């Protein structure tokens, strides 16, 4: 489809409600980044001239801001290309260094693909991985975690906030358990950093992954927190000039690093107020869509991160819903919208039945979402739910009192 054709369909741009996928750059972050593209373009590792020094200053300032947000020491922050790289570094790096004696990894079925895939890779390298189940609301049961730990467990990897359903894990409680058992604790903080309070000391976190473009920073930059006291060692993913204390070779992209730093600085100041504001908008959506429309179910927990609301609209398939509400930019756990035609594994882990998984829509709101946009979204959703249900044979059957789960379908 040409751009003209796409523009014709959506004459105004859709309302953005996919904040878990990515966030727009905060204009304040953009201002901080700008000088490092055209004027202060030096390589931050150039030790011998002003171009290098001023770039280095920007990097170190950013490092302090990132560290401050999670109560870490700046020396414990390593810049990477993003949370995917950081997650790979964490799993493979720990396994590489300590893997002789410790050959067991514990993670959760609802982790991000990169964590699960890195773990699967380690299985091919001779490690054993336990993928823990979660409760219906997405939370990890701490007794189940305790029971899974073995003498040869290397690391427990649990994300702070789930990207699909917004469930917040009890990181402090998990950290207490891992510390007691002498096991490393890694947390993918991509959706948690700058959104909920995280304290690596209080929570006994040893390694953590951070993403820039989830907190109104630029894409292409992230960080990994690596504890120094007691010292955690990671095998580097690739070789080179030994930058970032030998953890991550490569020239740092100064403007991106500066951007991540500024995004972190802003997040620290605005996090509490933003959470409150998002909670109000979340509750408005919840009341209108969950309470206000019949047969709409929440996937995840009611006390999850308010910027994320994942709903299943029974009797309506997700992709048709996405097409119908294309005035809203949202995403779906429906099979049709994933390349593999398989519904979301996160919803599957929650025990959400396949039919309801096919009907799920994730609404992601954030810093720049206005109340008007939420009102408009509610209107769009309500109208189209009505229209799609009028077209749905399953809705008819439900209205007729037929139990859909009891029918023998002639599947193809």
């Amino acid at each position, binding site marked *: 489809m040409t751009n003209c054709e796409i523009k014709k369909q959506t004459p105004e741009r859709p309302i953005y409600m996919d904040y878990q996928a990515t966030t727009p750059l905060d204009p304040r972050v953009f201002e901080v980044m700008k000088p490092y593209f055209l004027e202060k373009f030096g390589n931050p590792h150039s030790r011998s001239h002003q171009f290098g020094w001023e770039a280095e200053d920007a990097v170190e300032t950013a490092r302090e801001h990132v560290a401050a947000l999670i109560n870490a020491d700046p020396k414990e922050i390593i810049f990477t290309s993003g949370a995917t790289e950081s997650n790979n570094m964490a799993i493979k790096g720990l396994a590489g260094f300590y893997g002789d004696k410790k050959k067991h990894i514990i993670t959760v079925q609802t982790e991000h693909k990169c964590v699960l895939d890195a773990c699967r890779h380690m299985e091919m390298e001779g490690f054993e991985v336990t993928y823990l189940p979660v409760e219906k609301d997405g939370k990890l049961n701490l007794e189940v975690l305790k029971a899974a730990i073995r003498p040869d467990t290397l690391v427990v990897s649990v994300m702070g906030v789930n990207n699909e359903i917004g469930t917040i894990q009890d990181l402090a409680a998990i950290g207490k358990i891992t510390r007691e058992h002498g096991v490393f604790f890694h947390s993918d903080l991509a959706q948690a950093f700058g959104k909920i309070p995280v304290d690596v000391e209080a929570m006994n976190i040893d390694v953590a992954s951070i993403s820039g473009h989830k907190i109104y920073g630029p894409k292409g930059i992230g960080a990994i927190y690596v504890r120094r006291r007691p010292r955690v060692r990671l095998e580097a993913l690739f070789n080179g000039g030994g930058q970032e204390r030998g953890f991550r070779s490569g020239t740092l992209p100064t403007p991106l690093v500066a951007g991540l730093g500024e995004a972190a600085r802003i997040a620290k100041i605005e996090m509490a107020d933003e959470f409150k504001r998002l909670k109000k908008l979340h509750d408005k959506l919840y009341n209108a869509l969950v309470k206000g429309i019949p047969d709409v179910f929440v996937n995840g927990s009611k006390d999850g991160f308010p910027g994320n609301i994942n709903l299943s609209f029974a009797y309506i398939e997700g992709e048709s819903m996405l097409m119908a509400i294309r005035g809203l930019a949202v995403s779906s756990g*429906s099979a049709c919208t994933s390349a593999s035609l398989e519904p979301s594994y996160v919803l599957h882990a929650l025990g959400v039945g396949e039919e309801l998984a096919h009907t799920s829509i994730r609404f992601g709101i954030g810093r720049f979402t206005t109340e008007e946009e939420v009102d408009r979204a509610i209107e769009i959703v309500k109208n189209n739910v009505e229209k799609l249900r009028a077209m749905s044979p399953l809705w008819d059957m439900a209205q007729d009192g037929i139990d859909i789960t009891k029918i023998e379908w002639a599947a193809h």
Partner: protein
Amino acid sequence: MAYSEKVIDHYENPRNVGRMDESDSHIGTGLVGAPACGDVMKLQIRVSDDGIIEDAKFKTFGCGSAIASSSLATEWIKGKTLDEANQIKNTEIAQELSLPPVKIHCSMLAEDAIKSAIADYKKKNDK
């Protein structure tokens, strides 16, 4: 994944959405697919005494392409004989809607829905 204009048109301007009385002997009802697969099509035909499809209605639980495929199917079979309707190929539906490869199965289900409705009518009328 931008949406094809033809597919959107079938949703924005629905034609033949509805239901007919399943118990009526002139009505054939086809129900294909499964909710677990994300695709369920119900296609109904009203057949005249001389074997012409007078009217057709559909309801679909499925993606935009599935809705459009079943909608188009009801448009095409109206006015045809049962034998003619049975000849409709999914490839024709897919081509008309410009369905991408990943959505071809939607057109296959629509073809199945037509056949299923015709088979149901024939069974009811022992033809």
